[in-house]
């Protein structure tokens, strides 16, 4: 009898301590994010949650995040809150394991295009953690040396091309105007600028659209006379590397280039401008690269998870992230932050990345439901033309037929 009592008492104690020790797990990227998120959680989340007896832990996934998250979701062991990259959103939404946030979280403080990026069929699946867009990052010294005006926010495709050509002519064979990556993830922004749409109403991609052809011809046309150069031609693999060599005047990159340059070319004098406008439409195009916080549909502590999500995206938390120069947060109100008014090159770049989010035809960076292979035909066409192996018309024809095959699968 007494033994039973003791056992019951023990069980009751265990149950109560389990209830008091609720844990909210956040699944996210490994590496740098591990440090940053731990810091953010300690500062802005733990103090509030601890009062309710809830502990918050960050669970980083090292390596390929999308693969890791797929496994965790399938095994039902993903965190209560998790990172959700916009470019792979569709695949994860299809698993029905992501909780729609409509009615749970207020979207009004956040940049509209970012909310759109995480919305499918009217359902919002995540709140943007932070984001990036593309900008023109230029080497001031090369423009000074050539006596050509810096790229400006008023540039159109034509005026930019004129500046770059003049610079190339002035500086000669060892220097180049712009770094052209043979990828959709840079080129696509120019295609959007013409008003081209990635998918039509039936979900098909049309590469024969005159708008797309126009962008393709302009982009690849820059390679003429080596005004534009691919990164591999200057022994690197991306725009930041091009700038570091000091031989390429302009690169199309986002805010991530700032830290890279600070480490690798600390004395490079660079400036930032918005991407050029298309002459005909008068609009810029841009990508939104973003990762959001989503909630696991099968979480046992939904209310606490929502609270954690709100704290992570709260104004003080985002202010902190911005001021540390770590990322560009997603709240509209932050445009008035003092950090954006600094004259330092990194802060200038951050401001233009922020402004780029709702200037012109801005679309979330995504490959659609079929995944990253969608971009392959375009990348191949760009590479073939930029390296001079094919004519633009020829390459586009092949790309369209590859795309049709891919989408018909």
């Amino acid at each position, binding site marked *: 009898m007494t033994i039973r009592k003791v056992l019951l008492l023990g069980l009751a104690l265990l149950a109560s301590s389990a209830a008091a020790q609720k844990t909210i797990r956040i699944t996210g990227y*490994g*590496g740098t994010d591990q440090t940053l998120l*731990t*810091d953010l959680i300690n500062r802005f989340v733990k103090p509030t949650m601890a009062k309710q007896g809830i502990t918050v832990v960050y669970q980083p996934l*090292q390596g390929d995040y999308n693969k890791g998250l797929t496994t965790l979701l399938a095994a039902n062991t993903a965190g209560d809150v998790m990172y959700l990259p916009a470019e792979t959103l569709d695949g994860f939404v299809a698993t029905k394991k992501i909780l729609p946030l409509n009615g749970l979280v207020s979207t009004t403080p956040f940049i509209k295009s970012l909310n759109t990026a995480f919305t499918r069929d009217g359902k919002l699946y995540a709140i943007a953690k932070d984001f990036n867009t593309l900008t023109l990052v230029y080497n001031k010294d090369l423009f000074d040396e050539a006596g050509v005006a810096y790229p400006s926010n008023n540039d159109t495709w034509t005026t930019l091309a004129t500046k770059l050509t003049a610079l190339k002519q002035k500086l000669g064979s060892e220097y180049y105007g712009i770094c052209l990556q043979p990828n959709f993830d840079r080129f696509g922004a120019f295609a959007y600028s013409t008003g081209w749409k990635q998918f039509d109403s039936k979900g098909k991609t049309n590469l024969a659209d005159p708008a797309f052809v126009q962008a393709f011809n302009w982009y690849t046309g820059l390679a003429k006379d080596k005004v534009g150069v691919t990164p591999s031609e200057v*022994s690197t693999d991306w725009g930041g590397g091009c700038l570091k060599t000091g031989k390429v005047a302009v690169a199309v990159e986002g805010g991530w280039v700032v830290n*890279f340059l600070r*480490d690798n070319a*600390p004395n490079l004098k660079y400036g930032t401008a918005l991407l050029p406008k298309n002459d005909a439409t008068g609009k810029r195009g841009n990508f939104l690269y973003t990762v959001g916080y989503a909630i696991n549909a099968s979480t046992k502590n939904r209310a606490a998870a929502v609270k954690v999500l709100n704290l992570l995206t709260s104004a003080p938390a985002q202010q902190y992230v911005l001021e540390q*120069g770590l990322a560009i947060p997603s709240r509209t109100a932050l445009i008035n932050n003092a950090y954006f008014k600094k004259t330092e090159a990194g802060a200038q770049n951050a401001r233009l990345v922020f402004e780029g989010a709702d200037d012109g035809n801005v679309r979330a960076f995504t490959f659609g439901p079929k995944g990253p292979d969608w971009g392959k035909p375009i990348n191949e066409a760009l590479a073939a033309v930029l390296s001079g192996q094919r004519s633009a018309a020829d390459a586009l024809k092949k790309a369209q037929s590859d795309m049709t095959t891919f989408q018909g699968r």
Partner: protein
Amino acid sequence: MTVIQVPPRSGRSAGADERWLARRRWARAGWLYAFMLVMSFFFLGPFLMGLLSSMKDDPNEYPPRLLIPQLSVASVRQAYALGVQGGADGWNGGLRPGRTVTFEVQVRSPAGAPQTPPTVALFPYQPVSLVSTTRFAQAKDFAQVQLTPAGTRGDVRTYRVTVRTPVLTRQPGRRVDGVLAAPDGDRLTAALPGGRVVPVTLDTPQAQEVQFTLPQYQPVELIERAGTYYLRGPVFERTPLQVDVRRGQQVQGSTLPPSDRQNFGRSLAFRNITPGILGYTFNNYRRAFKETTNPASGRSLFFSWVLNSFLYAFLRVAAAVVFCSLAGYALARLNFPGKTLIFLGAVLFAQMVPNQVNLVSNYVLLKDLHLLNIWGLWFNGLVAAGGVFLMKQFFEGMPRELEESASIDGAGPFTTFWRVMLPQAGPALIALAITQFQSAWNDFFWPLVILRENTDFTLTVGLSNFRELYGGQGDYGLILAGAVLSALPVLVIFIVFQRYFVSTGADSAVKG
């Protein structure tokens, strides 16, 4: 045996022939030596190139240079001297409070070019890929820079750059090194080398000004006087200096060669003008240990990875030596039912099935046992099938007479094994230990699958983490340094035990 007599040629003495033969011998040795050099270049080349690149400021430099300033005697000597000036330590360098560092720059300004002095400034430089972003104070915010002309020769002018760091207290007393700990309310605290945490007193307005700019883990210098610790100032690991000259001018030379050049060679960056030898030649190696601090504990992750790898390799070797020799002996010499079946099923078959096949089942098993850590990793590799096979073959090759004489003396199976057979098994055990150490040290797949927390990583997994973190940032120097460090133990083992490598496997197993 016939000896062919070479008839002495006319005009040539026997001495000349001797010399000719000696030359031939030397030439042959030379060719052989050159051939071996070429071969070792091909085999060791990538490693040596990695080693060399890991010391450069820009490991991606193209075209690559073999002679780099980091290895030139003059530069290394300067690095040592600058380290002494800045940090009173020629090896570690750094910039300490109250120090003055002088650095020289020669600028050529031909007639017609501007004759103005260059502009110099300290700049914020701190590789940001990992933790350091918000961690340490920058010399730029504390030290003062001054430029003074120091002589002219022809059209080359020499300028002396002086960097001074202020002292934040006027108290005399004993100097103590410390690291700032978590603040106690409004008050700064510091951890002393012994681990004791003491409150820090800020007794001047200058010191009070920096109260909120110094983060946790910032190394500082303190003055101890009557049990009170006064802040003397932060200690900076690097002193990054930037020099810009005008169009038409040219930088002719400087105390240390610049690490970055931009703007047609007119903007130079010196990432650290107080490096010391470790901060100059072995900068990336030092960074590997220093910049991977675990934010929770402030301890070096790289160091834990190395320890984990050693622990894992040691456990694997110990387990293999014990279990493989026992199992190998049992399978070779004892008779029991199902022996052949065990050999075929547990040893040969287990060896033939690739790891990846039973990945999921093993993972789930370990997860249910709560062993998703280094112990689970070890548990998973407890008995090496290959090792059992090796030991079985070895014991089979031993003469039976040994055991027969032991059993005449009244020894049971275990005593026979322990007293008679095992002492003979030295070569096979060494071969087993070496191969096990090597495979445990290089093991990547399982550690990657099993280990979750970055404090639990082994070096291989940690290095792949490095690649992710720093590769994207183009910081290949650090990755190379990590790779070289991880290759060292295996290299040392190879060099020390190479003769056993030659006599591993069946060779030593059958001969005994």
